């Protein structure tokens, strides 16, 4: 049984990498360099080298630079240019990108807006497990006096391990369909269509392939090498997908 969620990026072929993505309201090279700077603060004392490498080609070619996916600490992060003022962010974690922390930190450090976007169809396959569905949007902003967190707005309708939850916090964005938040079914309070609409208002079309890698641009790969504390285990995209009920 799969929840209807048509129009996912690359027909969901790159899940779990693209199930969750980050977006920074900044050029891709600038974003990558700023991220590398932040990484070096912690990695350099540990003897880990942080490089920023350009990656040309199509979106899928850029995503391929993350392979193989890995366990343990993150080795590779990718910043992908778009046809907008936003830069996309994904990483090489074999269980999927964790965009929340990097985007929150970048928004604070660079005093820009950053997003965490999650779109996962709820899928239940007999004898194979469950891929818990989720639609989320988090908007982070610059640090504000008197506030601990820099989360500006958070919206989520997700299956939290067997039951659906709907959560929201922060100040309403002007284009939100607030009447939908009263829907009887929790999962209907924030749908994939609503997410796309909200993102369109923010100037993004992140589920369309041609939104990424405009002609003449390149993506930027952050690659870390050195003595990581944990054992590295590598996964092909197929292996990672099989493990995540994909």
């Amino acid at each position: 049984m799969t929840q209807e969620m048509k129009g996912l990026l690359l027909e969901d072929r790159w899940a779990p990498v693209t199930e969750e993505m980050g977006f920074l309201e900044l050029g891709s090279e600038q974003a990558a360099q700023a991220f590398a700077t932040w990484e070096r603060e912690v990695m350099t004392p540990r003897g880990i080298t942080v490089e920023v490498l350009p990656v040309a080609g199509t979106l899928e070619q850029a995503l391929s630079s993350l392979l193989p996916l890995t366990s343990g600490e993150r080795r590779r992060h990718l910043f992908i240019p778009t046809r907008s003022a936003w830069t996309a962010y994904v990483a090489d974690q074999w269980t999927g990108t964790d965009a929340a922390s990097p985007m929150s930190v970048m928004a604070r450090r660079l005093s820009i807006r950053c997003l965490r976007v999650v779109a996962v169809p709820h899928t239940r396959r007999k004898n194979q497990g469950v891929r818990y569905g989720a639609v989320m949007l988090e908007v982070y902003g610059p640090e504000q006096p008197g506030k601990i967190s820099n989360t500006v707005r958070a919206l989520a309708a997700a299956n939290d391990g067997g039951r659906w939850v709907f959560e929201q916090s922060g100040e309403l964005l002007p284009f939100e369909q607030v009447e939908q938040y009263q829907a009887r079914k929790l999962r209907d309070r924030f749908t994939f269509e609503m997410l796309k609409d909200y993102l369109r208002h923010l100037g993004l079309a992140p589920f369309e392939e041609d939104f990424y890698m405009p002609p003449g641009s390149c993506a930027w790969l952050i690659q870390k090498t050195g003595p990581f504390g944990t054992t590295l285990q590598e996964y092909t995209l197929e292996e990672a997908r099989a493990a995540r009920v994909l």
Partner: protein
Amino acid sequence: MRGLGASQPSRFHAAVSLLLLAVFVAPGAHASGETSQMRAVAGAGISQGSALGSPWAPRTSYSVSLWGLSEAGQGLGARLSLLPPATSAGAWELSSDAVARFTGEGPLYFKALGGVAVIPRPWWPPRLRAGGEVGLHAIRGSIGLEVGLGGVYSFPPSRLSQGEGVLSLGVGILFGFGAPSRTPALAPRQRQWAQQSAQSPQGALSPRGPGPSSVAETRTAGPAPAASQVALTPFGERDVIQQILLLQTPGAVQSWWNSGPWEDIAHWSHPLSEWERKYAEAMSAATVPEALRMWPLVTPERLTPEQLKDMERRLGTGAAAEGYAHWENRRRIVKHYFMTHPATLQQLLGLYGLARDFNPLHFALERGWQMGSGQEMFTEQKVSQLGAAQEFFTALAVGVAAGKLLTATRPVPGWGVPEPVEPVGPGKVEAPPAPPRAVAPAPEPAPAPAPTPPARAVARAPEPAPAPAPTPPAPGTLAPSPELVQALSGKNPTPQVPAGPRLRQDVTVKPDVPRQLPRGRPISPSPRQNAQLQRDIEYVKNELHAENIRVNQQQVTLENGQRVGINRPDLQFDYQGQRYHVEYDSPTSGRGPAHQSRLTNNDPKAIIIRIIIPEE
């Protein structure tokens, strides 16, 4: 759960059996031979219990109950229990149970119960409960005291196997023994059946001596005759039919039998009188409806082994079986009279209705049936469909109104419905100063791994960086938890515990991992705890590059690899290839060690950090 020592299906069957026993069968027990006149009894109790299969972490619960009990303490009742939260982050649990209380002549009692438990805030789906209690009681005058050991299995209706067993030890006090209740609902009717039935003793026999009406009215108002009086009764008057005619009310007859002939078998082993024999013959005839028919008279040759054993116990070896058979036949007459008397049946129906309607599930089911069929579900009595609908919707409206009222009277910031603001609201709260912490247990040698000391995150300004750096906590603002900072620099002040057996509900959880929810979620009604949590999140993500941070979500392993429990650590994250779980507690909370053990049992590789936040 493992403490029950049985497989899952058998445990479930036992739970269902107890539930059914409490709700349906108990009325029959109430009418057993040893039951005397009913009293309305109120009770209050307190108990301490702990979930089976997890480390001992007792929680105290309080209960009030209303009973219809015999003098011996047997009958039915309804109980309302309240379980306060274990920690400031917990929630109240309210449970409503139908309870059947069984007891013999000794000090032992047994209770079977079944009902529903709810957590009203935040609202959780109701859980069904079934269980039992065994203990000792003493009744003196109008007060009864009891102490017992109870076990209750509660489970979500849709996930029968994922319940939780709780074992508890409690004491209770009961008020209202002594004089029979004057409550109309429990008071037996007078004489109707004996006068109306064509097969009654009055219909079949002519009374001898004083007329039944005059004597009955004087005798039923007073106490039943004492055993010594019975023993002195002349032979011609040692006739249970005479006593029935004199006493009339089934409770009084039963009480008289219990206090006299039940023990004084020697004086009641003479041959049956004509009245007694005719009663038995008439009532055991095939023409009597089966439900009302009496067992046939027993003869010395037809005594069962159990009866022979009882005879030896009461009369000694070599006693005449004939005498015992006469006594046994009289006992049957009394029991039959008691059990089939309309007043007894009326009481049973009343108690059944009481128990039925105290249980919300049963109430709803019953009213639904009545609306559809126009009959009571089990007694098949005709009822008004409109009345049933009215009762159902009235109860529903009252329940909804009560819920709204509870919500309106005590809004708790940051709890239940997610707040549409930051955990520390803009402009209204300055980050509270770092509280002086009760840093729990003494430091121990650092476990692996030994991360880069993040000391600068606490006290020093960040190193110069090309990009704008995060502002360090200004003096007087909230700082990261010292326990967290210590732990992540390799000196965890929380001693780690060895892994033990996992709870069944954790073992059976699906390993698939749900997504990380937004991290502004509250973990407690305490704004201070929530603010500290948010500060700690900022610390681990900004300065340590921690990943896969979850707040108040079910436990998962490193890198969201696998879900390993339905418990919800306050904070969990990955740092340098290691999974950390953080629990925030108040100084008075006793749940920290239990939470830590459960986390370790589910993921022995994880490191647990316990943080004590002072009360506000």
